[in-house]
C-alpha cells in the first residue's frame, strides 16, 4: 500500500464505455479479462523461461546469511514467481540460508514477481510499474529484515 501511494501521484479517472448499463458491464468485464489474461500469458512465458534458464540449485549451494543472502533470495523470489501457496515448502528446503533470508524470500514472493510486474505494466502503465515494483521490493525486503532482526 505504501509503495502504491508513493508510486502514483495521479488521480483516478473513470472508465469510458458507451452504451446501456449492461453493455458497459459486459464490455468492461470482457476487456478487463482479456487485458489481465494477455499480460498473464506474457508474464507466465517469461517465468517459464527464467525457471528453465536459471538453475536454483546453484544458488542453493551458495547459501549464507546477512544482507547479501537476503537480497539474493529476494531476487530469486522475483525470478521464480512461485505462488504463495507453494513458496513455504520451497523456503523450508533452503536450509543453507539464514532464517531472515528465507523470510525475505517469503515476503517478496507474493508482493513482487515477474508475472505481477507484467500485469501491473498492463493495468497501470509502464512508468507507474517502474516506480511501483522496485519500491515494493525495497519495502518488502526492508520489513522482512526488520522483523527478522527483531524476532529471529
Amino acid at each position, binding site marked *: 500500500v505504501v509503495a502504491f501511494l508513493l508510486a*502514483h501521484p*495521479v488521480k*483516478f*479517472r473513470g*472508465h*469510458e*464505455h*458507451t*452504451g*446501456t448499463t*449492461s*453493455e458497459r458491464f*459486459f*464490455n*468492461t*468485464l*470482457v*476487456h*478487463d*479479462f*482479456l*487485458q489481465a*489474461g*494477455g*499480460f498473464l*500469458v*506474457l508474464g507466465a*512465458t517469461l*517465468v517459464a523461461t527464467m*525457471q528453465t534458464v536459471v*538453475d*536454483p*540449485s546453484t544458488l*542453493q549451494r551458495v547459501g549464507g546469511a546477512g544482507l547479501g543472502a537476503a537480497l539474493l533470495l529476494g531476487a530469486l523470489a522475483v525470478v521464480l514467481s*512461485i*505462488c504463495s*501457496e*507453494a513458496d513455504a*515448502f*520451497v523456503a*523450508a*528446503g*533452503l*536450509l543453507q540460508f539464514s532464517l531472515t533470508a528465507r523470510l525475505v524470500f517469503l515476503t517478496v514472493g507474493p508482493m513482487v514477481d515477474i508475472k505481477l510486474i507484467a500485469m501491473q*505494466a*498492463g*493495468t*497501470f*502503465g*509502464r*512508468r*507507474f510499474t517502474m516506480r511501483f515494483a522496485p519500491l515494493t521490493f525495497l519495502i518488502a525486503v526492508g520489513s522482512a529484515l526488520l522483523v527478522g532482526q527483531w524476532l529471529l
Partner: protein
Amino acid sequence: VKSGDAGFLTALVGGSVLYAGSTNTVLLFLRPSMRPYVIAAGLVLVIAGLAAVVMDWRAGRRPRRRVAATVPAAAVAHDHAAGSNEHLAADEFGDEVDGAPALAAHPAGIGWLLLFPLLVAVFVAPGALGAYAASHHSGLVVAPSGTLDVDALLRAQSITGGVPNIRVYDFTRGASADGSRAQLNGVHVSVQAFVTTSTKTNLVLGRFVVSCCAADAQLVSIDVRGAPPVLKPNTWVRVTLAFDEARSPAAHAIVNGAVPVARLVKVAVIRAPSDPYEYLWG
C-alpha cells in the same frame, strides 16, 4: 479489437477452461480440489463473452445518436479521437500523456495472446510431468516436513493384514527424520510411481509433489534395489518395498534431496492414474 471479437475470444477461452474442468485434463495442471472453481470460472467467461457478442450485434443495429446521447460529451470526443470506443487502461494514471506503452493503449489487443496457450494445448497436448521432467529436474527440492506416523502404519497393517499404501512423499518423510527412520526400516509398504531409470539391479521411482499447480511440482524419488524387471521410463508401477536404512543416505542428506534406498519386494505394472501427482495438503 471490436467488442464482438473480444466477446468471442472470451467465450472461446471460457469454453476451453470449461472443457478442461469437466474432463481429467485439469488434473494435469491443478490440484483436484480446484476443479469446481475452474468450472465456475469457465461458465462466467462463456456467459460474459456471449453476452458481449450479442450486445455488440444489437448495438450495431441501433442508430449511433442514441448511444452518444447516453454518455458525457467529453467521453464521446475522446472516443472519436481514439477511433474506437475502447477504454484506455493507461488513462487512469495519466500515462498516455507522457507516452503510454503501446500494448496498454489497446487493452484487448494483448488479449489475443490468450490464444497462445490454447494453441499449445491443442497442438502440443502436454501430458503429465514424468520421467523426462524428472531427468531434467534442476529445481529446488521440497523439504519433507513433519514426521511420518509409522506406528499408525503398523497398526493399519496388523488390522487389515495387507501392505499399507503410502505416498512416495510420505516414504521420503519417514526416511528423512531420525525419529521414524529406525521404525520404518524393513517395514513393507506399497507405493505408486513412474519409472525414472531402470536397470537389472536398480529401479528408480519418481513422483511429482504439487502444492497448488504443476508449475510448483517437486520431484520425490526412491532408489529400489533388488532384481527388478527392466522397465521403460514413464511406466507406472505399484511397488511393494521396504526401507533399507543401512544403505540409505543420512536423514539430513535426504532432507536436502538425496534419494532414499529401499529393498524390492514386489513390482506390478499399472495404468497411469488419472491424478498423476501427489499433493502436499488437502
